[in-house]
């Protein structure tokens, strides 16, 4: 049902609950603002017409939760920070606290209603599915069905499960890429140098040795990359105002994206002469950006534009300004060609 509200002497609206919450969060209206909606006899202060503690519903696809509000773990609704209490490290609305504690005292566990419908991805059920099948199903789900996958991704539950996924699939992808690269270089060198020569044998041995070293180093690199990458992107989300969930959620989303995309390197792109490594780099790079954007938008419940900005911000700050300038130049050239014709 839609609301009307008084701003100065003017009647504004109608607006849905979600917009009303956004106006409160932005400070445009407050609990004393007069509001009215169908069925009410007269205009009434907001705090009476809609008592505090009800919160805002979880936003639908493409919508954003009110800025600065925190999601109640029990109800899945959003509340201003002053109406939130923490139990067992998780945020609950003050209104839900009594019922939650009563449930715990009766022998129950802390409820996680907001995440009840989030049980995925398949990697979280690896004990039932088995590790190979769970990994394969997760890779397929993230790469080819990312919207549904991240709508269903558990946002809490610790870092160990996504970290293990990132280490296993990321390491396999990294080492596979190195093996294909090594084989591709051997094939190329066999055409331009003497395959029986000592130089060829030395370079082949060095390449093989590097692969053996990476069998040990790759898991460490994947683990550090998971924390550094997720940390940078969480900071980026905070700068863009998109960090609606804790670091744990960003970490989980980042690991499932990064691990799945890294697994693409199992495909032997490097064996394609000249353009193979370039195709692999672009495919992996672009797919990871897209998957991260979708992952953050759905797990943090923010708009796609904000998620895209957060994912691209580190790259824009570093060097992509160059690409933007190039695009502008090409755009200007294309436009001038249009004028001449």
């Amino acid at each position, binding site marked *: 049902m839609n609301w009307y509200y008084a701003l100065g002497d003017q009647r504004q609206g109608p607006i849905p609950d979600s917009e009303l919450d956004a106006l409160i969060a932005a400070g445009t209206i407050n609990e004393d603002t007069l509001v009215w909606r169908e069925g009410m006899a007269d205009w009434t202060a907001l705090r009476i017409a809609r008592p505090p503690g009800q919160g805002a519903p979880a936003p639908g696809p493409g919508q954003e939760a009110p800025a600065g509000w925190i999601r109640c773990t029990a109800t899945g609704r959003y509340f201003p920070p002053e109406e939130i209490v923490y139990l067992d490290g998780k945020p609950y609305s003050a209104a839900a606290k009594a019922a939650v504690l009563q449930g715990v005292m009766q022998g129950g566990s802390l409820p996680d209603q907001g995440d009840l419908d989030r049980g995925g991805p398949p990697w979280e059920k690896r004990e039932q599915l088995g590790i190979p099948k769970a990994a394969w199903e997760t890779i397929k789900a993230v790469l080819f069905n990312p919207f549904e996958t991240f709508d269903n991704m558990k946002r809490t539950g610790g870092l160990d499960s996504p970290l293990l996924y990132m280490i296993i699939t990321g390491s396999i992808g990294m080492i596979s890429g190195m093996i294909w690269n090594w084989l591709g270089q051997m094939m190329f060198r066999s055409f331009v140098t003497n395959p029986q020569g000592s130089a060829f044998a030395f370079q082949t041995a060095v390449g093989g040795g590097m692969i053996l070293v990476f069998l040990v180093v790759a898991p460490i690199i994947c683990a550090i990359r998971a924390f550094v990458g997720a940390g940078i992107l969480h900071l980026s989300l905070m700068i863009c105002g998109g960090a609606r969930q804790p670091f744990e959620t960003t970490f989980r989303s980042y690991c499932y994206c990064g691990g799945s995309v890294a697994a693409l390197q199992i495909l032997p792109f490097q064996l394609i002469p000249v353009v193979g490594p370039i195709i692999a780099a672009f495919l992996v790079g672009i797919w990871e950006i897209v998957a991260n954007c979708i992952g953050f938008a759905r797990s943090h419940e923010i708009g796609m534009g904000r998620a895209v900005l957060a994912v691209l911000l580190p790259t824009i700050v570093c*060097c992509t300004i160059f690409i933007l300038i190039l695009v502008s130049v090409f755009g200007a050239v294309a436009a001038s060609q249009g004028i001449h014709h």
Partner: protein
Amino acid sequence: MTWRRLRPGELNHEAIWLVVSVATLFGVWLWLHLAYPVPQCMFHRVTGLACPTCGVTRCLRHAFHGEWKVAAAFNPLALIGLAFGAGYNLYAAAVLVFRMPRLRFDRLSPLTRAGIRFAAIATILANWAWLLWMRV
């Protein structure tokens, strides 16, 4: 801003970031020490102008040798970041060893959040202006 004990089930950020930052710093130091190639900045090569992160490698290289003034000239924000990281690691090591309460920002008003956000953006832009002015 509050000092409090870790809640049951809460992430131990101090332990995580202490290990990650020490491992990352060691990796960067090793990479530079072995004189492995560092990525070239396309923006700088094409335009001759510094990008917002230009000079970070040179800053770190000088900082690892204790040449703070030279390091600051190459990228002040990177040096500030390094100092902040070192300070955080000292804090993290102290709270872990002595089992002290942790520093947490549980309640930040939207206004404070917005202020921090804009301050961060302004700092990055100011640093970039410095790099352009110094022709790093």
